[in-house]
């Protein structure tokens, strides 16, 4: 299977830029709230380059909030703690700066932007990020080639490119579009927020395949999911359980299987 190949490649250490001990993301004792609602209560997490971390946990535990803290959503107020991303204080950066530094979030609920052409949007995003990094704008023919290549990978219909961003897309198409955007923007850290929910098994495989093709020694993933099913296709290095605003357990892939059997009832004990 595809993921195996990717994983093997990484473990082979063929990519010289893979530094085993370097930490990409260091989340330190984060407390965050929305209004008066305290959601994250001292969360710690470290992610090294190339790693895939799965975050599981009951509804309302704060999984999306964790993603939003990293992406910089203004509504979420960080009251304590720090986040270091590749040597930068992530919390000091604007949302769009974080994106350009390489933080990408595949949204749980991708929004629709009426009248704005999907491809136009993506090119604007890519060029905004390139500009931030001091790179030249990508011209439309090079961009088009890139798009053609990636759209095939995501098995997406061409016409979705010309349609307004997410407007009239089915649930599955929206999720695929997120991964497609990710493949064009090539982030360093991708947060996938329940990208698997609402997907049938075929769509799930396509999405997982897209993600696996992007896996490499430098790119890390935080995969938020409810179901162990996704983790059969995107095999994580670590599985964390987030409950009541904290990581309460960490294990390897087998933890996901265990959770599938036991559920989260044990948390209440």
């Amino acid at each position: 299977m595809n993921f195996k190949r990717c994983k093997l490649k990484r473990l082979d250490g063929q990519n010289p830029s893979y530094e085993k001990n370097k930490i990409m993301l260091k989340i330190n004792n984060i407390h965050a709230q929305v209004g008066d609602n305290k959601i994250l209560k001292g969360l710690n997490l470290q992610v090294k380059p190339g790693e895939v971390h799965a975050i599981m946990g009951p509804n309302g535990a704060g999984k999306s909030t964790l993603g939003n803290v990293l992406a910089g959503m203004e509504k979420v107020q960080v009251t304590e703690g720090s986040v270091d991303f590749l040597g930068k204080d992530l919390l000091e950066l604007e949302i769009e700066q974080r994106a350009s530094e390489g933080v990408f979030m595949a949204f749980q609920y991708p929004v629709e932007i009426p009248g704005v052409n999907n491809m136009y949007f993506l090119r604007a995003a890519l060029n905004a990020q390139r500009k931030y990094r001091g790179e030249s704008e990508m011209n439309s023919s090079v961009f088009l080639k890139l798009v053609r290549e990636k759209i095939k990978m995501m098995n997406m219909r061409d016409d979705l490119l010309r349609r307004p961003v997410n407007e009239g897309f089915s649930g599955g198409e929206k999720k695929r579009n997120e991964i497609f955007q990710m493949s064009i923007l090539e982030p360093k850290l991708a947060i996938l927020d329940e990208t698997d929910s609402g997907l049938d098994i075929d769509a799930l495989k396509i999405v997982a395949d897209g993600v696996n093709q992007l896996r490499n020694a430098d790119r890390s993933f935080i995969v938020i999911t409810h179901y162990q099913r996704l983790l059969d296709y995107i095999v994580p290095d670590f599985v964390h359980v987030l409950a009541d605003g904290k990581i309460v357990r960490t294990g390897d892939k087998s933890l996901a299987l265990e959770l599938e059997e036991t559920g989260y009832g044990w948390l209440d004990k």
Partner: protein
Amino acid sequence: MSELLKKQKNVEVHKRVNQSYKDGFVTDIESDTFPPGLNEEVVRAISAKKQEPQWLLDWRLKAYAKWLTMELPDWAKLKIPEIDFNAISYFSSPKSDENAPKSLDEVDPKLLETYAKLGVPLHEQEILAGVKRTKVAVDVVFDSVSVTTTFKKELKKVGVIFCSFSEAVKDHPDLVKQYLGKVVPIGDNYFSALNAAVFSDGSFVYIPKNTRCPMELSTYFRINEMNTGQFERTLIIADDGAEVSYLEGCTAPMRDENQLHAAVVELFILDNAKIKYSTVQNWYPGDEEGKGGIFNFVTKRAACNGVNAKVSWTQVETGSAITWKYPSCILRGDNSRGEFYSVALTNNYQQADTGTKMIHLGKNTKSTIISKGISAGKSHNTYRGLVRISKKAEGARNHTQCDSLLIGKNCGAHTFPYIECSNSTAQLEHEATTSKISEDQLFYCKQRGISEEDATSMIVDGFCKEVFKELPMEFAVEAKALLDISLEGAVG
């Protein structure tokens, strides 16, 4: 009467440069300007200055008498400050007009500079060298006087008349007489009466039978002088089977006091003829505190008198402190069609009350209304539209779509659709939406690396798409740029 003329060197120092209004410069040229005030003498003086025939003077005087009996309309959702009509000067012309310029070489170089700043493609060479290779014939109305018309010769070859209103009165009096005031009568409304009394110049277009105008026609209006009003008239006639696309653009310098613009546009569309009339209106909107800006009271009306006649109004309104404007279509000819595509954007303290009237008189007449209102800052944006189906308008159809987009929490959007239907075979559709640029949309865009400003502009552009696609290509680009400028400071 010469004592009425006061030479005034118009050297104005900008007190404050408002970055966001890019057209807000004052041109330092010598001009002839009437002292402020309005009375019968002034009306006569304007007419004399333009060496008009008696019939036109009589028409003006009748209009003035009518205006005196009328009152400023108060039905619009606008707060209109008291306008002192005696504080306004009713005529101003660049001085070089005294020996009317015959060609571009004779035009005051300062003026040409102004147009260059405005981006008006005045030089024919420039236009010909343009990437698009579309030709645009331009008439420029600077304060009150039409300065130059390009491409006249080429148009003449196919029989198209495109000239200033004053020239038309001199050279084509019969046409002017036949059509002037026939679709917007003198007493139609307060501002049309005022315009009829004191109008100074404007554009005139006649497209002969079965002729497709070989290029876009365009007029740029600019108010430059202090305390002047601008009252231009445009008259366009498309004879049987004729076709023309016409664009007007307008700008004004930034001034602390308000300036009045009260124009009248009359269109006549005969059998199987078509007029496409596009406006990009960018009069000075006033500053962030609502100081200054143009009061824009405009009457535009098209008479589709012929069978299969078609008119299409496309407007992008971003300027003016107050906009009061309802480009209308009278669909008299059977199978005639009227279209109204509008983007109206208000920011800061701007107020707009704009829309259209579709008057269905003929059989199987069709109308389409697409209105996009964008409100930001503390502004108020109102759509007001009337669809009237008369008894005889068998099989008439209307589709109205009216969308409002709000940016921020302190602005307002209002919609007043009026429908009067006297024929049961009519089919009317009305859709209306109000939306906000949501935080989620902005977050999504920013998460992809796009700044809030660019995201807003992108979302607004997407919102306006259906209207922008109706504009001639070059102007669609200009319109988008204008929206961006007008929205500066509206976000964040």
